[in-house]
């Protein structure tokens, strides 16, 4: 019975369009919701994942990259003296305030690191260069965050935490999870532009120390040695700190669930549209199915017709939906939101579409099972 499903669809283009739109709806929702989630999650741990440090040292019980608390800078020397530690670099992340041209303020995250260092995530620059950070009051921001910060250009003077700052360059696609723009600067300016005191203004503070272990040293052993010999710090491997950050946003905030629920809802709504449309087509052609059954067609033959209809709508909808999702991804990128559509996501969405359309066809197939062959003389 090959080909009948396709011919039925060709003859009923309106219904085919509706079913295809149902698939498109589901595909676009699932792809963009999950893609956005993947983008957010990637951004959440971007500066950890791209760092070249084996170990991140923070205060105890830091929940996520963005919410670390300061501790005494002098602990650097204790860390440095732990056997197996080859190199230690300070890395500070703190919230701050950016004065907008409108007179209002924008929240920012000041990321201060050693531009001569080896362990922090390298900045992917689109304008200006890392070397320009050595200039006075120099800061670098992401090109995707310009709009949020009053559209400064390279060379613009701005005010951060009531101090003058000069934009010397732009990174690309290095944005925070929290949507608070990153402002990259040197360590020497972390206390000028950031907020590193833990209440009482005492000696200098730091947020993180990035550690590189000596060649041949075991990362986990060094990590435990740091925790054992430096009081009140926690040492994480890069991977575990990355995972802690991601899982905080995904699970503890319930955000992951929110995105997945939206994707699931899209799948359900799309599925109902497809199955209802296929069902309506089946009911309309029930006498034809009855004739086929009377002529001795098997249940398999009949199921195949409906399945063919479902899978064709699925395939067309999948291709259109993915194309639309990629377009949305592009548009989102230029609007400053990362939507990641990696190949495994495409494959997963394709598999999901296949399942969705088969399940939608199943509703009709169950109905076809109930056809009495004797009905052919009663219509």
């Amino acid at each position, binding site marked *: 019975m090959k080909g009948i499903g396709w011919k*039925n669809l060709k003859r009923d283009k309106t219904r085919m369009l509706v079913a295809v739109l149902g698939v498109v709806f589901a595909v676009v929702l699932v792809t963009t919701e999950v893609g956005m989630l993947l983008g957010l999650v990637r951004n959440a741990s971007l500066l950890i994942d791209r760092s070249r440090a084996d170990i991140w040292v923070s205060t105890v019980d830091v929940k996520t990259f963005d919410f670390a608390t300061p501790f005494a800078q002098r602990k650097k020397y204790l860390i440095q003296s732990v056997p197996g530690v080859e190199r230690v670099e300070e890395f500070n992340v703190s919230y701050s305030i950016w004065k907008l041209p409108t007179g209002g303020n924008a929240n920012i995250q000041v990321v201060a690191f050693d531009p001569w260092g080896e362990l922090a995530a390298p900045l992917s620059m689109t304008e200006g260069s890392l070397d320009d950070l050595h200039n006075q009051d120099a800061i670098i921001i992401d090109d995707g965050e310009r709009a949020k910060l009053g559209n400064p250009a390279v060379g613009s003077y701005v005010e951060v935490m009531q101090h003058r700052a000069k934009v010397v360059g732009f990174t690309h696609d290095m944005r925070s999870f929290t949507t608070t723009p990153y402002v990259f600067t040197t360590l020497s300016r972390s206390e000028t532009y950031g907020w590193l005191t833990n209440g009482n203004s005492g000696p200098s503070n730091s947020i993180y120390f990035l550690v590189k272990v000596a060649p041949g040293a075991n990362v986990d052993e060094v990590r435990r040695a740091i925790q054992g010999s430096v009081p009140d710090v926690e040492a994480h491997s890069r991977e575990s700190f990355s995972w802690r950050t991601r899982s905080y946003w995904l699970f503890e905030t319930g955000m992951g669930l929110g995105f997945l629920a939206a994707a699931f809802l899209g799948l359900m709504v799309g599925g109902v549209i497809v199955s209802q449309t296929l069902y309506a087509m089946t009911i309309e052609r029930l006498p*034809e199915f009855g004739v086929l059954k009377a002529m*001795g067609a098997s249940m398999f033959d009949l199921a195949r017709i409906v399945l063919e209809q479902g899978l064709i709508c699925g395939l067309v909808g999948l291709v259109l939906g993915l194309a639309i999702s990629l377009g949305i991804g592009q548009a989102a990128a230029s609007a400053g939101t990362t939507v990641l559509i990696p190949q495994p996501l495409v494959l997963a969405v394709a598999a999901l579409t296949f399942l969705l359309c088969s399940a939608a066809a199943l509703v009709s197939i169950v109905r076809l099972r109930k056809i009495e*062959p004797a009905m*052919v*003389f009663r219509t």
Partner: protein
Amino acid sequence: MSQAVIETHQLGKRYEAGAQGGLWAVRGVTLNVYAGDVTVLMGPSGSGKTTLLSMIGGLLDPSQGYLSVCGVTLDGCGEPERQRFRRKHIGFIFQNYNLLQALTARENVAIGLRLRGYDESEADGCLDLVGLARKAGAMPHELSGGQRQRVAIARALAGAPPVLLADEPTAALDAEQGRLIMGLLRKRAKETGTTVLVVTHDPRVRDFADRVIEMEDGRLHRIVRRLRRVPRSAAAPRVRPHRHPRKEGRHVSP
């Protein structure tokens, strides 16, 4: 006389559903139909004609009695067996043609061939048998009623099933198209020995019958053997056939 293609003995069908809580739509039907015969089944509405035809076609399970078609015993066999039986032995023709609307004439016929395991390329030959080779690529909605019914006949006889069953095949057609259709069925019966059973209300269909069976209230009321020549040109019978009705038997059932 040769072995009967359709054999029934005290055949009955009871519908359980219904306001009166059950109804014998067919009862006590004993009947033999032979190869190459055109048998016409007549009778008032509700007399059980379609029900009898459905049982013979393996569409409906009998409630009582013996039923054998083409050597297959059909009483008490399951739907999978009946499905195979229909596929192999029966061609169906309906009042409303029941062509697949999304398929061309050729593709509709090809389904019949495919189901019976024949090559689809024979479809054009089948359409030629009903004089529609030119319309092979037409969609059903592009054909007249008579042409649609001829496509349906081509589909039914594709793969040469030994039995053709038709329920009111001419009811939706004008007199001339009706004669054309019946002529085709009769020609098929005589040329290939196909057994043809036609249910109808149309008295003109009698002219093409070897035998007319009248039903009433689920029972065989009268069997009339027609002893006459059927017009050669089925499309336009000029001579009114000479009638010699003879009672073959009055069947009284329990």
